[in-house]
């Protein structure tokens, strides 16, 4: 009951689960997904571990710090835009981008301390898991075992599946900012990638049981499945899903902001330990609003692909830089 060292692993896990649920359009068949699970998890873990090692060497490099900050800001804006699109499709009238932006960023004010991010993430993760169980129960009568595909796996399928599973989201890079197990627990990266890819496979397994061969072709399979619930609980509760997504995105944003402040020098405000100062919120809100306004009419999927690519390039650069510095004898 005593908060000796708030553990942020739940926040990272929630972020990864959120990525899986909100980007489940990138569909793949469950068989290659299950087969590739160990490979994808290993690749992700290795990439993150090497990144963390290189980051310790390059930690003081201003360019690296500012680049990661920019990527985190881009990811935050992307999450807001994605949610705005979701809200706009569900409720076409009266959903202004300013309103959505304000509603997502405002709770971050109360999520500026590590302990509050950690505990809120625990609660939202519990709600998410309960909701997932409810979703599966509600669509259980429509899940058919014979929907599982048994056709031979093609090289194209393997490639698509691997690309969908092994996306290096910012969550895999963040543990590098706080080395050691104090902030996230032991074997953070291995657990994170295993849980993340495992959850993705489980979600696609349920979707394949529901849709059969059409699962990878659905535009928004999770949403469609949820609305077809035999028990009808999600038929009328679309708003509940959206509320849950909002909570997940807000916690992701809080986590990114906390990491951003750490990258800027880590100094929190004087009175509260490990906190983001209140004085930074107007600037933060302004920045998010500006980025959202800039990318307002951009294609979100393309933007997400660009972000993933940039993250990959950044990771590669950091790893290369780290290796070079290490070879030249720089002290870690």
């Amino acid at each position, binding site marked *: *009951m005593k908060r000796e060292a708030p553990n942020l692993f739940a926040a990272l896990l929630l972020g990864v689960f959120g990525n899986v649920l909100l980007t489940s359009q990138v569909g793949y068949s469950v068989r290659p997904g299950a087969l590739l699970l160990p490979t994808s998890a290993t690749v992700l873990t290795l990439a993150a571990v090497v990144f963390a090692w290189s980051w310790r060497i390059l930690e003081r490099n201003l360019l690296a710090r500012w680049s990661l900050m920019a990527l985190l800001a881009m990811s935050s804006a992307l999450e807001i835009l994605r949610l705005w699109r979701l809200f706009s499709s569900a409720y076409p009238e009266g959903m202004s981008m300013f309103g959505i932006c304000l509603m997502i960023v405002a*709770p971050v004010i109360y999520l500026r301390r590590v302990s509050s991010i950690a*505990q809120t993430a*625990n609660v939202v993760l519990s709600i998410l898991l309960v909701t997932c169980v409810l979703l599966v129960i509600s669509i259980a009568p429509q899940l058919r075992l014979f929907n599982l595909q048994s056709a031979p796996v093609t090289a194209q399928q393997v490639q698509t599946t691997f690309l969908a599973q092994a996306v290096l989201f910012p969550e895999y890079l963040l543990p590098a900012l706080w080395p050691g197990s104090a902030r996230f627990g032991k074997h953070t990266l291995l657990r994170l990638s295993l849980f993340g890819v495992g959850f993705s496979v489980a979600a696609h397994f349920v979707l394949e049981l529901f849709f059969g061969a059409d699962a990878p072709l659905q535009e928004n399979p999770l949403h469609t499945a949820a609305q077809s619930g035999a028990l009808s609980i999600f038929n009328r509760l679309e708003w509940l899903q959206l*509320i849950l997504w909002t909570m997940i995105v807000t916690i992701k944003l809080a986590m990114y902001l906390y990491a951003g402040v750490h990258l800027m020098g880590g100094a929190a405000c004087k009175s509260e330990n490990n906190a983001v100062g209140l004085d930074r919120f107007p600037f933060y809100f302004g920045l998010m609003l500006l980025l959202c306004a800039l990318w307002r009419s951009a294609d979100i999927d393309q933007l997400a692909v660009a972000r993933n690519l940039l993250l990959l390039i950044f990771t590669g650069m950091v790893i290369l830089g780290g290796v070079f510095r290490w070879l030249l004898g720089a002290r870690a």
Partner: protein
Amino acid sequence: MQQQAADRLAKELDVNKEFLQSSFGDSLDFYCKDLSMGRVRCSIALFTGLSSPEKLTVMALSLLEQEKADFQSGAQLCRYLLTMSRIPTESTPVTTRQMLVERLANGLAVLLIDGCPCAVGISTQEMPQRSVSNPGGEGNMHGPQEAFTELLRNNVSLLRRQFRTGSFVAELHISHTHAKTEYCLCYDKERAPADTIRALRERLEKVRLPVLLDSSYFASFLKQDKLNLFPAGAYTERPATACARICEGKVVILVSGSPFAMVVPSFFSEHFESLDDYSAGAVFAGLIRLLKYIAFLLAVFGPGLYVMALSYAPEIIPIRLLSTLAKAEAQTPLSPMLEMLTVTLLLEIVREAGLRSPKSISHTVSLVGALIIGETAVSAGIVSVPVLTMAAAATVATLAVPSLYEQSILFRFGVILLTGVFGVPGFACSALLILAMACGSDPFGYDYLYPLMPPSRATLRDGFVRTIWTSLAKSEGEGRL
């Protein structure tokens, strides 16, 4: 150094008397009388409302006459009174003017002695006080039915009576207020964590207030995040509840003049607990506790959810109910949000008026407000019946968890406003704001949501529900800090 010397009592009786006369001479209740004991000139001072001259005569002066000791000097008399006499004097002499004033204000009679730079305090307190009565704000069917009163020492005695161990500590402190009000930290030194006690002591020591009338004045100083609306401590007027919390390793703060004790650290789940939970059967107690959680959710989110359903997400309402609600809404000029805000505000005004008005007319105020205004507002078509029903249900639900009343009201207004303006995202934002506030509270480093979150065995032991007494008693250690 000079100031310290000036504060010391003088050897000469007249100087000390002059100080008292200049300080309290004009006061109606100040009493000072010269007398001699043996060959020593003395003077007795007291406040008549706080100390009893009759007790002084019976317990001190006549006893002293019977002892027939012959005192040659003031120092001899002082030594005799402090160490040898049967008179109920304080064991430590009064050596400074500040101590002298404090003793008088505490209701002691003080004997000033000529030729001695010390005075002797005699316990003759007799203060007007309210007798121990039933608690007015914490209804319980079973268990002790006595409540704290305004006298600090009585309140400590009420606790000590229930807590018959040597580990019970009642630490007296004087606040940094103009009136130097006393407060007391009560805890079990074997169960309360030493770092919590130390931290609490330090934080309270730093508090500077113009006046201290209740333990709740400390609340704001104990919060880590001042923007957080959840309370920093729980309050009780029942010694039995305070005793139970002390057994859990918590600290009870009593303030002189207030019949309410503050319990720190306090957790969210404690607001849903009552003494009756442990007297009733586990199944029934669990059911009632779950009902309280539902009532809290209804009180906070009910009206907002109604506004959201009607204005933004009508698909969540069954068709037949939706047509009834739509018909009712069509007859009113205001939007659902404004309607809900108006009714909720009106109910709060009625409640406040009923609470503050004299008891003889408070029932009339409630009747006029709730029945007549409500009825006429509906008849006039200003508000609809469903809105009135929802607002009334939320208000009644608020009373199921009275200790979170302030928070329920504030959160309710926030949820209605955000949902009414921004729709579903507004509802999501308000829900997350409340959740983040609850999760962000960490009183003295403890999880505010313990034992509810993160889910563990303790959640079912004494969290959302309570387990049976046999297993509750077996795992008693889990309930402690």
